């Protein structure tokens, strides 16, 4: 029998309204590199959060068996105590502290609370040598690049006596060379007997480095591929990732598509902090009246950044390019301009960027168009109540009254309030960014119906989504975006998930 360092048995994790993990199985052999692949939102990160104790014991069902013993982790400290260390996609380093200070943060080399700096620096040096980072432990984190920061994270994990290293998208922010070096490092660790779990979108890297691959889809573990037995080609992996059946999860619609409504030419935007980094790179696309256009791509492809830079330059620096509405060039320098020109951007982050959770539905509904309910700057509260109630009925927002705080609504109903807010600005072009993220199937269907109603009324809809089935099921035309560029334009009726995925992988 194989020697499993870790077995996760029948893991089920439910969030209000959504089953994020459904009876997931994962078996990791000692000393192997095990890859976890799946689409965005498939449940990979949730699974790792269960493992590391971020979702404490009791908040999920199933067993975690580590070194043959069932473990109940209540906090990250518990799992780290056993040698399970997770390195997250977003690096968690303090920029104004040194490498050594960061490595031993929360794990200080100290006697009765007094830090032993000699030991700290000595140990730091030792682990930096292991990961092959030639920097002084006293260098500030902010002074080294992302690639080196990633190595610091790994050294930090080693300093915690890691036996099982989990890396979540370790190469997503690294360049070619740094990525290669990191993978070689993992292979070297493997030789020394370390077990690693790697989560990655980059299938070429996965098939290069991994011994086994477990595919997660829709919160279920689909299959585990073994390098010795199975085909490790990208197309084989993709098939596992997307191979689900399309059913009538999407309402039918007769498209009535006419003239071009919005056209974007040579649109480029730079990162607001790292001014040399192009986040949106020479993008061209258009959307017609009555059309739903999808923008597909992986997280970090620059889709949200594109949408927000178009929407009154609410993201990015040094934005250049041309924007045409109804064939006329327009300059949208503020969100106010964008709204005035009939644009609406429904954010992917409804809690962070979209709604005021502590305020009632009615106040959220009218926020982007207060002029609609006010005269001479004075708000007609009865009118406001009416407007909100109208949308509540139209969109089927389930709540006792529109006086209720949106913070108390379910995700699906919050999304509808957000849609109501933007529909009330009477836009011609709606950009919906991940409109169905984190909401249940029934509410998704209702959102799709609202989208169909909008295009039936002659509006244009741009849907950004990481969920390929909904992109395929809803869109007339699909753009594929990767690393800031539009890499493909596909007809909705003539495409498949495999085709979209291969366009993304090809350019990765």
């Amino acid at each position, binding site marked *: 029998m194989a020697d499993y360092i870790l077995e996760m048995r029948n893991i089920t994790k439910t969030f209000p309204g959504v089953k994020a993990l459904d009876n997931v199985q994962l078996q990791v052999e000692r000393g192997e590199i095990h890859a976890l692949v799946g689409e965005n939102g498939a449940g990979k990160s949730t699974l790792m959060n269960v493992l590391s104790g971020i979702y404490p014991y009791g908040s999920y069902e199933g067993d975690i068996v580590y070194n043959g013993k069932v473990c109940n982790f209540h906090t990250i400290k518990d799992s780290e105590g056993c040698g399970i260390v997770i390195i997250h996609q977003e690096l968690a380093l303090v920029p104004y502290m040194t490498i050594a200070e960061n490595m031993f943060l929360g794990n200080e080399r100290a006697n009765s609370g007094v830090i032993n700096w000699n030991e700290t620096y000595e140990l730091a040096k030792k682990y930096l040598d292991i990961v092959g980072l030639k920097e002084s432990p006293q260098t500030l984190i902010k002074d080294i690049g992302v690639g080196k920061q990633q190595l610091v994270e790994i050294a930090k994990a080693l300093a915690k006596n890691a036996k099982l290293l989990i890396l979540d998208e370790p190469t997503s922010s690294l360049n070619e060379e740094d990525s290669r070096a990191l993978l070689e490092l993992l292979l070297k660790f493997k030789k020394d007997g370390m077990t690693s779990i790697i989560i990655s979108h980059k299938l070429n890297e996965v098939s290069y480095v991994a011994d086994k691959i477990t595919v997660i889809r829709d919160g279920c573990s689909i299959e585990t591929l073994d390098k010795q037995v199975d085909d490790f080609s990208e197309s084989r992996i993709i098939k596992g990732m997307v191979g689900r059946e399309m059913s009538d999860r999407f309402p039918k619609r007769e498209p009535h598509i006419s003239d071009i409504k919005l056209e974007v030419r040579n649109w480029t935007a730079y990162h607001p902090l790292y001014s040399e980094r192009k986040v949106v790179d020479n993008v061209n696309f258009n959307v017609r009246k009555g059309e739903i256009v999808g923008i597909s791509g992986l997280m970090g492809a620059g889709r949200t950044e594109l949408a927000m830079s178009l*929407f*009154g330059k*609410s993201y990015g620096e040094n934005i250049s390019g041309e924007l045409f509405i109804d064939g006329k060039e327009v300059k949208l320098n*503020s*969100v*106010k301009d*964008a*709204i005035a020109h009939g644009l609406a*951007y429904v*954010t992917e982050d409804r809690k*962070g*960027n*979209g*709604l*005021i*959770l*502590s*305020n009632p539905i009615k*106040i959220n509904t009218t*926020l*982007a168009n*207060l*002029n609609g309910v*006010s005269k001479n*700057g*004075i*708000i007609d*509260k*009865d009118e406001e*109540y009416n407007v909100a109630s109208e949308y509540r009925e139209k969109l089927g927002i389930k709540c006792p*009254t529109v*006086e209720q705080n949106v913070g108390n609504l379910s995700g699906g109903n919050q999304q509808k309030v957000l849609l109501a*807010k933007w529909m009330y600005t009477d836009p011609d072009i709606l950009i919906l960014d991940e409109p169905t993220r984190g909401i249940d199937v029934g509410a998704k269907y209702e959102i799709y119906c609202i989208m169909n109603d909008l295009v039936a009324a002659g509006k244009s809809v741009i849907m950004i989504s990481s969920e390929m089935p909904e992109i395929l099921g809803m869109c007339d035309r699909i753009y594929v975006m990767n690393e800031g560029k539009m890499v493909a334009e596909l007809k909705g009726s003539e495409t498949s998930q495999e085709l979209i995925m291969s366009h993304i992988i090809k350019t990765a």
Partner: protein
Amino acid sequence: MSKTKTLDFVKKYTMIIVLILVIGLFAVATKGTILLPMNVSSLISQNAYVFILATGMLLCILTGGNIDLSVGSVVCFTGAVGATLMVTYKVPWYLAVVIMLIVGILIGAFQAFWIAFVRIPPFIVTLAGMLIFRGLSNVVLNGMTISVKNCTTFVNVFGGGANCYIPDIFKFNGFNMTCMVAGAIATALFIGLQIKNRAARLKKHYEVEGAFSFWGKLVFISAVILAFSFRLSQHKGIPTVLVWVLLVIIIYGFITSSTKTGRYFYAVGGNEKATKLSGINTNKVYFLAYTNMGLLAALAGMVTIARLTSAQPTYGQNYEMDAIGSCFIGGASAYGGIGTVPGVIIGAVLMGTINLGMSLMGVDQNMQKVVKGLVLLAAVIFDVVSKRGGKLISKD
């Protein structure tokens, strides 16, 4: 009433209940002295500056729990400027008032610029302002006191001194009928408006609050207004400063509850990113909040030098703390986005009552500070914990 209903009621009206309890407590402890007409009257004139400053502070706090530490110094500085103009340069009082207001707005705009557009933390900017304008007050006054006793019109208009009351037209002996009539008219107006509103909403089939709670509230508030006017009538009538306070309360109460501009303050404090993405210029909202604070600080400056009939470099010390305390006790959220003008006024009255009550009881000044500090702490703990669903210890 069921248990949850009782809890909701208590949660909604906590500070009013506390205020009633505190008044009751002091009424017993001082054997009714605190309810004497003279003391009711002095509660207003002594705390007028708190009402005015707390209203302005509310706008700052609404934008995200940001406070303005400079108001005490600005009160002193505008007062010093006004007194110097009127006494040393013999500028007519109305012109001096206009200049003081302009100076207040300019100071506010100066600080607001750094806060709103350059995004220097308000704490730092206003801490600097606190030092700057305290120092400048000394410079303007040469470290001396300027008496404004002889600027009688100014003193009367802004309600300091012994005779700063609205003149009585009826002239009954020992009872100011004008005040009582004004109180009665105010009550009638209030009741009329409330009933009209409710009827209109009922007619359009809108949701209205239950009859019991509506009439209960109506009777309670009317009774408070009437009792209050009766007490003032027994003393010398309406202190002129009350007119200014009421004006500020009504104007800002209206702005915050019923205008677009008012809505923006709440929106910025509730979720700045969402507000920005709704096409609202959030920088301007911050600018407005702090500029306005300067304006109201100037008004408080006038009230202060009028009441003390002089300007001194030490005036206005800790005024910002009174204003901030009133806001938080009155239910403003330390994270912004929540708080109302009536709530803040109740907070200020509570603070003022505690002050007055303890003074009447002869409690030591230092102990008074201890009690005020504890009340403030308790109020904010209550706010934070109740928002966390009753859990005392934070786990995030």
